[in-house]
Each structure stands twice: as C-alpha cells, then as structure tokens.
C-alpha cells in the first residue's frame, strides 16, 4: 500500500472520483493552472480540462451558488474555498439555499465544499479558523473532518457520493505533516461512523481533525503514569456517531471532549450535553471540555500556542480526570 501525505490522499480521492464519474467537477479560485493554493489539484486541469477544473473569479457566492445550481441540474460539484475562513462570503448560498432545498422543496443538492481549515502556522484570524460547529448547527448540512490520510480519501469519496451538501474540512496543519498508508483502489468511509484511534480503558478523549494527534501525544505521556487513554476520532461532526461516544464513555467512565474551535457554542458542548443526558449514571467524573478560548485566532506564534489546545493542556486535563 502506498504511503501518502494527508494532502496527497485528498488529491487521490478527488482524482479517483473525477476519473470514475464524469459528473464530478472542481471549481474554485486558482484551482486550475495553479493547482490550488495548497496544490491539491495540481495537474488536474491537464488531465480533466478547463471545464472540469474551473478557475473561478474571486466570488465565493457565485462559486457556492453556482455549485448549488449545477448540483440541482445533476452534476456533482466540488468547490474549493481557498481557506475555510472565506466560506463566510458563501454562507448565504450554503445555509439559505443549499442546506434547506431538500427539506422545503424536495430538491436534493449533492455538492461538496472543500474547506482548508485550522491553525498552527501563524495564519492569523482569517486563515486559521475551524468553523465546523457553525455549520453542524445548520439542519441540512453534513460536516466531515478527516484526521488520517486513509480517511481523507475515503471520506472525500463518500462526501462526493452523498446526496446532500457536505462540507469537507481538511486541516491545513495535517496536509504535509501527516503520512499514512492509503489503499490505491477506490473505497468509501461512511459518514457518521467514528474510529477508535487508540484503545484505552481509563479515560476517553472525544475529538476530531488535527486534535487527534495532539491527544495521541498526550496519551503516550499518560502511558508512563499507568493511565490508559482511549481516543475516539469522530471523523464527521454531522452526522456524529453518538453510539460510539456513549460506548466509549460506558467503557472508561471519564471523558475529555477536545476541539480546536473555540469553546462557547463549539460542538464539544453538544457532545458533553448528550453524555450528561444519556450516560450520566456511567460517569465517574464531570465531563471535561478542552477547546480554544473565545477569541479570534491570533497571529503571533506565542499567542497562537496559547490559543490552540497543546499537548501539555491535554495531559493536564487527562491527569485531572484520571485522579478524580
């Protein structure tokens, strides 16, 4: 099995679907000749031509709305936001039109919006956000947040196949940092099915995206304390795998919910509330949340380190739970 970076796995998934299904096309700013700001679609325009790899004007409303129309007409559009942050300019098309069209008018909108998200490299307030919680709150949108190269490919293919609008959050800090074995053939990874990243018996970490790796490093440190940490990678926050979360809670009785997005109104709150409602009797400690503080994402490395949950923060949280 070839080893691919997370970024290569996304390219591989997209290329696989574009080769298999003529209805799939990519549209975004600089995705053609330039291959995308992060080079996910490098070489795609040569292979698929300028009408399947479309360089759009700097117009997110037209890109997202255009994908909505094309999807209703039977194509399978994949839009690339240059940065997830710029989806704010396409919010109305996504939330007002695409998300509600199936429910209110019976018209499915099978489209994918790829959103390079996340911080860790001084991108500042407008190139680092993790807006998945905002969209998970919107009925009708699915939110996918792969952590591994294998999932990056399988989840992208599932997202393109899905009959609903899917937001695919690809974490920029994983692009070239994370490598893994990725099957060459086409496969799908189901939406709404969590993955046990690490088996453990004393404390559960519920997380997704880049935080899976932060949690993993922390778990290794706790190994030496004799604390066994389970890490559940949700993979998708809408739909989210409630059953897997509750199963892990019942197994360990102690839970840390961890995400890179800000705390208040973050999706971790929904998970914590669900655990409180449905697994209260199984808990041996209060559910703990660890997330970014309620500020915009800062630019300076010192500040950004204080913003994004770090390994030490997770270690401290896990120890606190273990000792409770």
């Amino acid at each position: 099995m070839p080893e691919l970076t997370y970024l290569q796995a996304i390219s591989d998934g997209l290329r696989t679907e574009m080769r298999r299904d003529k209805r799939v096309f990519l549209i975004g700013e600089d995705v053609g000749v330039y291959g995308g700001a992060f080079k996910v679609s490098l070489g795609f325009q040569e292979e698929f031509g300028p009408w399947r790899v479309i360089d759009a004007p700097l117009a997110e409303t037209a890109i997202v709305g255009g994908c909505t129309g094309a999807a209703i007409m039977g194509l399978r559009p994949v839009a690339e936001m240059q940065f997830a942050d710029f989806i704010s300019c396409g919010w109305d098309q996504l939330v007002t039109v695409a998300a509600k069209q199936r429910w209110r008018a019976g018209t499915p909108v099978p489209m994918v919006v790829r959103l390079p998200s996340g911080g860790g490299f001084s991108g500042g307030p407008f190139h680092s956000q993790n807006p998945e919680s905002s969209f998970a709150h919107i009925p009708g949108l699915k939110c996918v947040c792969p952590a591994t190269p294998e999932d990056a490919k399988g989840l992208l293919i599932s997202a393109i196949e899905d009959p609903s609008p899917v937001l695919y959050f690809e974490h920029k800090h994983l692009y070239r940092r994370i490598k893994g074995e990725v099957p060459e053939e086409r496969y799908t990874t189901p939406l709404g099915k969590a993955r046990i990243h690490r088996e453990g018996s004393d404390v559960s970490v519920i997380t997704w995206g880049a935080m899976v790796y932060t949690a993993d490093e922390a778990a290794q440190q706790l190994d030496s304390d004799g604390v066994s940490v389970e890490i559940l990678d949700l993979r998708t926050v809408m739909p989210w795998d409630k059953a897997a979360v509750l199963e892990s809670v019942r197994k360990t009785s102690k839970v840390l919910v961890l995400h890179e997005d800000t705390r208040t109104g973050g999706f971790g709150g929904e998970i914590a509330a669900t655990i409180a409602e449905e697994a209260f009797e199984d808990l041996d400690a209060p559910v703990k949340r660890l997330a970014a503080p309620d500020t915009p994402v800062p630019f300076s490395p010192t500040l950004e380190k204080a913003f994004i949950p770090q390994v030490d923060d997770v270690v401290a949280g896990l120890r606190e739970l273990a000792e409770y």
Partner: protein
Amino acid sequence: MAIAREAGPVGSIHEVREAGLDREDLLGVYRAMLVTRGVEERGHILYRQGKIPGSFYTGRGNEGASVGVATAMGPDDVGTPLHRDMGVHIVRGVEPWRIFAQYMGRQDGPTHGRDGNVHMADSQLGLIAMVSHLPAMLPVATGCALAFRIREEARVAVGWFGEGASARGDTHESMTLAGTRTLPVVYICDNNQWAYSTPTHLEFATEHVADRAQAYGFEGVVVDGTDVLAVYREAKRAIEKARAGGGPTLIECLTLRMEGHAVHDDAFYVPKPMFEQWAESDPIERFRTWLRDNAGLTDEEENEIAAGVKKLLNDSLQRAEESPQPDPADLTKGVFASPEDLDTPHHK
C-alpha cells in the same frame, strides 16, 4: 444616459408570428395572464378569510413580464422565478389547486406546508424554488447554466431578480461568472420601481439596471414589462442567443408594483398619480385590446376564455380546501437527501 438597448413595442401579428407565436399561442398567453391574476386575486380572498397563515404577496402589474418570459423558454430550459412571477409557474404548468394548497400551508402544496407563499417550484417542470433572500437565486441559475455548458447541452437557465436586489453582491458575482464564461443564462430584472418602500434612485445610480450589462460583457435590454409581446420577443431573442452559445443577456422589464410589498402594506409612499398612470397600461387590458385590434379576438372567445379560467379557479380552490394539513410527524423527515431523491430526470 442609457447604455442598454431600449426595446420598442411589438407591431403587427406578422411580427409576432415571426417571433414564434401563432394565434392559438396568443390566446394561450392571454389565458395564462388571466389565470395568473386570478390565482392572486383568489389568494387575496383566502387571506382575508384567514385561511393563509403569515403574509401574502402578489405580482399584480407583472403578469405580462412573467408570462412573456416563460412563454419564450424551451421545455428543457430551467428558471428561478420569484414572488412577482406567478405567471412563470402558470405557463410551465403548475396546477392552480396546488398553488392554493401552498398558500394555505396544506399537504398538497409543492412544499407540503414547509414553506409559504410563492416559495415553491415543481422541479419536474424545470423550476427551482426561491428563497426570501434576494437575489440569492441568481447564483443558482448561473450554476444551472454552468452545468449546461459543462455538459454541452443546448439548454438555457433564466434567473429573476428585482431592481432592489440588483444592489446585492449576488447579482454582481453571478453576472461576473456568467460573463467571463459566456454561460447560457438570461437574467430578468423585474423593475417594479419599489423595493418595499425604497424607490429606484436609492437602489441604483444608472438610468437603467440593464445599463450594467455592458460592464459584465453582455447586452442589456430595457423593455416595457406591461407589453407581454415585447417581453416575449426580447426574451426569445436572448434565450435563443444563449442557446446558440452567445452568452448571457440582462433584460429589465419595467413595470409598477400595483399593490403593496405584501398584503399588510398599503404603499402610501407611492405617489397616487404614479398608480393612475400605470393603471392605464395594465398588462392584461393592454394585451386584450391588442388581441381585439390585431388578432380578431371576438366577444365570444373572450367570454369563453374568461369562463374557463373562472371554472378552473373555482374547482382549484375547492380541491385545495380539501387538501389535508401536513402531518407534524413528518416534520423531521427529509432534512438530508436520500439516494432515492436523486432518482429524477436531472440526475440520470
């Protein structure tokens, strides 16, 4: 100074025939205009009877513009009509009883009570349901045209917006994308001169909205929206040009919104002489006169059409009133699409 082409009226029946309508078609256009107004007049009655929840919007004065454009569309073309464009639904074949059911939030309305008033569309008839945010459907119409271009289909998308919505970025972004890619889309601006209470000079600073088309690299046309035949001729020309690969056109149909923004609004801010002046060019009366003068419309034919429309509306109302209320147990169904939803002609 106007940049857009200012289209003149249609003269003879010969000119109309050249544009593709025979006498039978013309009577059909007249009938569609009557049904359009009739549906909205009956809607008013339903509203006063307390049978329509929420508010109620009509397109009185816009019947010529909406019917004219829809008549020019081909069977495989698609469109995103708005709340002043009932005529588009009628011409495409939406049955009035389903519209009444929609008004009343009943199960048999196209949205099954999930959305109200004209927020509806039958996708089988090539229409896409509007949202309240205007002109949010323009990027969607543009995307339909993009799909046609990618698949190299000889189909055209028609996107509607109002002169008020011309102020929003969606309009600019759509026309930029369509212009740069020469997409087969026709933009129809229903300029009814009032965006709720805001007059045109506070919405755009050019003489016409259509003047902007040149800036996007395509033609702009201004047409008298109360002249159904002139609207038809210009729409037909633009649609066939788009179909042939000639790219977009922006057509501005000039009308007056003859009622308030919605039923609660008495439009006190519209000068009375303006209403009086525009009442003289009522699109239905104008076309009726034209038909009598140019196509030999007889009293007998007129009465027969009027009686047919009346019966249709009466029967439709009765059928809609028999439609059940939607079942609250279904509320949470269909938030996400299922693979079976893709089993439509568009997704084959």
